[in-house]
């Protein structure tokens, strides 16, 4: 909402500096987005063309002696209309002007024109950026004060307000004036609404019937006969332009002007076009159509409230008028409507037809019916003054719900302190509420407050408390701490686990990333995740084609992040994302399931380049696996990795992560991403190892139930011994099986592979495993003999189970 200061000043004196006023309005809820000046004539001043004489060397140029107040300057001017005694717009040297021919901005320099120095310029409208007119100079009114800046003289200072939807009153200059009055201790005076009613009785000429009073609470109308349609006077046209409206003609401009002045939308009909002089307010019939003022033919339904005459639709109530009954240059009689339409219905109709009018902007907020009468009277008075004619006596006033008067709100005095934590003196409460136009009666510890008709938002005691707090000032309310008891603590294991995993993964050198949760099925498929058979949840009106469905996997998200960084980031590429996927439970089942997932990628160099190790090797499957193993180890969980096949991953380089301690529950998958998937993402770095983990599945593991409370296990007090074995074994035997078998020996604490070798000296189909076995007993130091015996027993088991041969020990 734009409010020109000069307009505002018609209703309230502005007694504080503008910045201060803007601050007060903003603090009290009417945010001043900016203080703008219309027009920009920086440097240009009002001058007097004191003398005009011919240029000595050019027939078409004149020399003008310009008086700017304190000095007289000689200027060369080519305009044919310049004459002595005119008030003109003078631009001194240095002013930035629009070039009259090129349209570009340039700085005015002192120059000689045909031998005479010109000390500035007498401007045309085009040079001032006002219009394209550049044939002659702009001649200002005679009373323009010499020396005044043109900005001050012509420009309008406008408050640009960012309004909240609860305050339709501030969608009117008068409403803003009332707000200014309350905040500065002034009084706002509404504009006059009286006029002579010299015509015949309106009821003998026109008739209004409201058939659907639920959608139209009140309909007021006046009739002005013998009007002369023409352009509005400059002051009115300028004001409309200042708030961004286009002037049309005097009658239409008045209806617009009064809407912005009083907040009541109005509509004017060409009375002679109304069949039988009747207006019927009713729901549209199925199939009825209306050609609206914007040139569209609208097909109406009974949900739309229509204004009709005796025979046909003439307007969409409170949204937009029809063309056939609109004001034209030939209009002689104007029926002026100010009605009160139901906000919700009005909003639905406007949204349904995708029409956003200033009228709907006001009606949808629920105006009071009392406002209609003020609006129609104000506009009638102005039409009479600007378009002439005679006003029919009386006013049509259909108000079926008249008894629904404004209900007072009872505000118990102690409710104020109860809600705000501060109390106000009764006198302060009374004057503050009264300054907002409320009627206040204080009795028996309560205030009975009747809000004014322009404040439909005041309905409950809390509304009044806010009025008090904001007008007196939020800064006057103390700051205290909550004094009540602290609520009982509730565990949130899922969230705690997720955050802990984030900490652990970042501690392992992985960067957390966060991607949009809206995507497309095509983008998801690029990562070739397993089919889940669920339809993704789709956004009805996506903002862009790439963000149309809720993701059902995170794999494409992290690969896209990898793709983005692979070319620009030289270090290790290790990233993870923690986020939800959205799985539809099916129609009628309710909200979708939103399980938390982790996905991570490991690619690029294993470490930063360094002087002690030279160019680092590429990361691979085992880097990712180590991260997953170590992550689970933080929770005391030992994972198993079972060969698996998934379309995202290279065959033979993928494993399901299962937990032996939990009945081999599957908690995720890990593998090297296929080259097809990588090229679908335009990733040239390879290999790329990826893992995906299910937070819910991890949270259900038995180790997680006792996390932080696991029993202490005594560690061996006697020294351990490490012995190495080199084994030759079929290459298909998983190393993990060898280790597990070794660890089954009761003296073995741990078994670790420290070398895997195939090649010279190892027959095809075989591999050599070097294993370090650590032995320890709880109650003694093991003897050499015992160690050998244990080792031999392990070797026998390995030979028996896997055909393992000892190469060296």
């Amino acid at each position, binding site marked *: 909402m734009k409010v020109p200061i000069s307009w505002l000043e018609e209703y309230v004196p502005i007694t504080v500096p503008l910045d201060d006023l803007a601050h007060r309005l903003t603090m009290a809820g009417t945010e001043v987005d900016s203080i703008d000046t219309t027009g920009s004539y920086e440097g240009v001043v009002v001058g007097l063309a004191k003398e005009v004489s011919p240029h000595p060397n050019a027939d078409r140029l004149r020399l003008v002696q310009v008086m700017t107040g304190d000095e007289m300057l000689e200027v060369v001017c080519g305009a044919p209309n310049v004459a002595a005694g005119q008030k003109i717009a003078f631009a001194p040297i240095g002013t930035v002007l629009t070039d009259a021919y090129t349209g570009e901005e340039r700085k005015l320099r002192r120059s000689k024109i045909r031998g005479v120095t010109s000390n500035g310029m007498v401007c045309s409208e085009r040079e001032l950026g006002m219009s394209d007119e550049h044939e002659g100079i702009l001649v200002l009114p005679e009373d323009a004060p010499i020396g005044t800046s043109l900005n001050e003289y012509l420009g309008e200072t406008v408050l640009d307000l960012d309004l909240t939807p609860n305050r339709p009153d501030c969608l009117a200059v008068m409403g803003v004036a009332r707000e200014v009055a309350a905040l500065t201790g002034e009084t706002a005076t509404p504009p006059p609404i009286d006029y002579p009613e010299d015509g015949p009785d309106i009821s003998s000429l026109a008739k209004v019937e409201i058939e659907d009073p639920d959608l139209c609470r009140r309909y007021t109308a006046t009739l002005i006969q013998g009007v002369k349609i023409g352009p509005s006077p400059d002051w009115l046209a300028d004001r409309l332009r200042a708030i961004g409206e286009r002037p049309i003609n005097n009658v239409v401009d008045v209806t617009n002007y009064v809407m912005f002045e009083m907040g009541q939308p109005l509509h004017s009909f060409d009375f002679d076009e109304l069949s039988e002089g009747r207006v019927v307010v009713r729901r549209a019939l199925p199939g009825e159509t209306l050609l609206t003022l914007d040139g569209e033919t609208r097909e109406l339904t009974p949900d739309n409230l229509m204004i009709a005459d005796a025979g046909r639709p003439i307007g969409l109530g409170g949204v937009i008028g029809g063309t056939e009954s609109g004001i034209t240059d030939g209009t002689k009689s104007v029926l002026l409507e100010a009605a009160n339409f139901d906000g919700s219905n009005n909003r639905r109709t406007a949204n349904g037809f995708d029409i956003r009018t200033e009228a709907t902007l006001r009606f949808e907020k629920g105006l009071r019916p009392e406002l209609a009468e003020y609006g129609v009277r104000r506009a009638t008075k102005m039409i009479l003054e600007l378009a002439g004619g005679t006003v029919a006596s009386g006013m049509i006033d259909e108000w079926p719900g008249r008894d629904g008067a404004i209900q007072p709100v009872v505000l118990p005095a102690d409710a104020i302190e109860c809600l705000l934590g501060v109390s106000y003196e009764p006198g302060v409460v009374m004057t503050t509420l009264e300054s907002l136009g409320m009627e206040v009666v204080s009795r028996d510890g309560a205030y009975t407050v009747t809000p004014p008709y322009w404040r439909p938002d005041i309905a409950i005691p809390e509304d009044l408390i806010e009025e008090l707090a904001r007008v007196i000032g939020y800064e006057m309310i103390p*700051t*205290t701490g909550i004094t009540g*008891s602290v609520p009982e603590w509730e565990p949130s294991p899922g969230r705690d686990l997720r955050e802990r995993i984030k900490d652990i993964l970042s501690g392992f050198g992985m960067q957390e990333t966060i991607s949009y949760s809206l995507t497309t099925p095509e983008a998801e498929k690029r990562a070739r995740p397993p089919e889940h058979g669920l339809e993704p949840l789709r956004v009805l*009106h996506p903002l862009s084609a790439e963000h149309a469905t809720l993701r059902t996997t995170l794999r494409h998200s992290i690969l896209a992040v990898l793709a983005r960084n692979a070319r620009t980031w030289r270090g290790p590429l290790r990233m993870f994302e923690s986020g939800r996927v*959205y799985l539809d439970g099916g129609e009628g089942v309710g909200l979708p399931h939103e399980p938390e997932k982790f996905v991570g990628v490991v690619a690029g160099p294993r470490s930063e380049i360094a002087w002690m190790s030279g160019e680092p090797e590429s990361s691979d499957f085992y880097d990712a696996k180590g991260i997953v193993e170590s992550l689970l180890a933080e929770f005391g969980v030992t994972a198993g990795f079972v060969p698996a096949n998934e379309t995202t991953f290279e065959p033979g380089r993928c494993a399901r992560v299962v937990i032996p301690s939990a009945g081999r529950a599957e908690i995720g998958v890990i593998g090297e991403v296929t080259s097809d998937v990588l090229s679908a993402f335009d990733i040239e770095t390879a290999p790329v190892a990826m893992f995906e983990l299910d937070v819910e599945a991890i949270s259900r593991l038995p180790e997680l139930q006792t996390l932080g409370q696991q029993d202490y296990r005594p560690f061996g007090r006697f020294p351990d011994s490490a012995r190495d074995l080199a084994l030759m074994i079929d290459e298909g035997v998983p190393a993990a099986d060898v280790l597990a078998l070794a660890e089954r020996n009761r003296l073995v604490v741990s078994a670790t592979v420290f070398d895997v070798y195939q090649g010279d000296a190892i027959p095809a189909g075989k591999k050599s495993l070097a294993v370090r076995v650590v032995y320890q007993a709880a109650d003694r130091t093991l003897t050499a003999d015992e160690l050998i015996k244990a080792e031999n027993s392990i070797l026998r088991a390995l030979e028996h189970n896997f055909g393992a041969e000892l190469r060296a020990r």
Partner: protein
Amino acid sequence: MADSVNSTTGDGAEPSPDDRIAAVRDGALAALAALSAAETADGLQEWRNRYIGRSGEVTLLLRSVGSLPPEQRAGFGQGANRLKNELEAAFDQREAEISATTGPVGAIDVSLPGRTPAKGRLHPITQTIREITDAFAAMGFQTFEGPEVELERYNFDAMNIPSDHPAREMFDTFWLDRVDEEGDRSILLRTHTSPMQARIMETHEPPIRVVVPGRCYRYEATDASHDWHFNQVEVMAVDENITFADLKGTLYEFARRVFGPERKVRFRCDFFPFVEPGVDLAIDCFNCDGDPACRICRGSGWLEILGAGMVHPRVLRYSGYDPERYTGFAAGMGVERVAMLKHGIDDIRHFYTNDMRFLSQF
């Protein structure tokens, strides 16, 4: 070497004991002085071994005392000991001189980079959410989370935003192609974390003090300070006797903890359908000094970081709380906004572009 000393002492032309000492001394000092800085590490050590080491020449002189006639032993011994002390002092001095120019023996290049442990960071949004929830946790607020796909009932109706209400304009919504359990109203992507107010009140008795972080979605065009996808933290306290003054005190404390005491804070009246009175909490712009062209605050000098207010009685009643008995306050803040303020980030779109060159800075 002991043998060779013995063999020389066995020769006929025998130098006097004093001459022997003088000869060792001259040779040692000359050698010491001749050691150039470049040779220090090994050269000094060599010299030390040769003259004053365990089988060095001075040591041998001392050991040969026993082979001298008894009357010479005392004088020779003292002379050899003096030489030993003198040479040790000379060694120390020379070593110090050399150290002064080349550094200590065995020095390494401490400017070479160390072996880097793997580096990983949490996303700035995660870090900011934790900062916010931690600040409130210190004031007794517990963290809850809720669904991102939400029912219209919780997102709007329970929050005192009925259908056809113009306040819905404040929350441009992504609707989904699914309907709710009753089968008549579309489900949606929550436009704010506020629906959790109702969900928590439905399942908990007062007192309530909660913070709810999470992703939210609004159907609006993206620019430097708005994204259609963002994170909010909802704050709510409901109990008997909770006042607007408590709201101010709690949010002041939050702002102090998260932004530091130097940042200016402003409470002004604002409207949100689910609170009454309503509050806008703003913090002074980090980017400009009131520059009207500032692309962050657009010249206002203030950045709104949260909307708040006293929980609207209709919101309390909707969730089964008696507004005559209970009052409360609620606040909702944009996490990206807070992170941008804290780090001087000038474009919200950086957060979800996931460029390592951005993320690795936090």
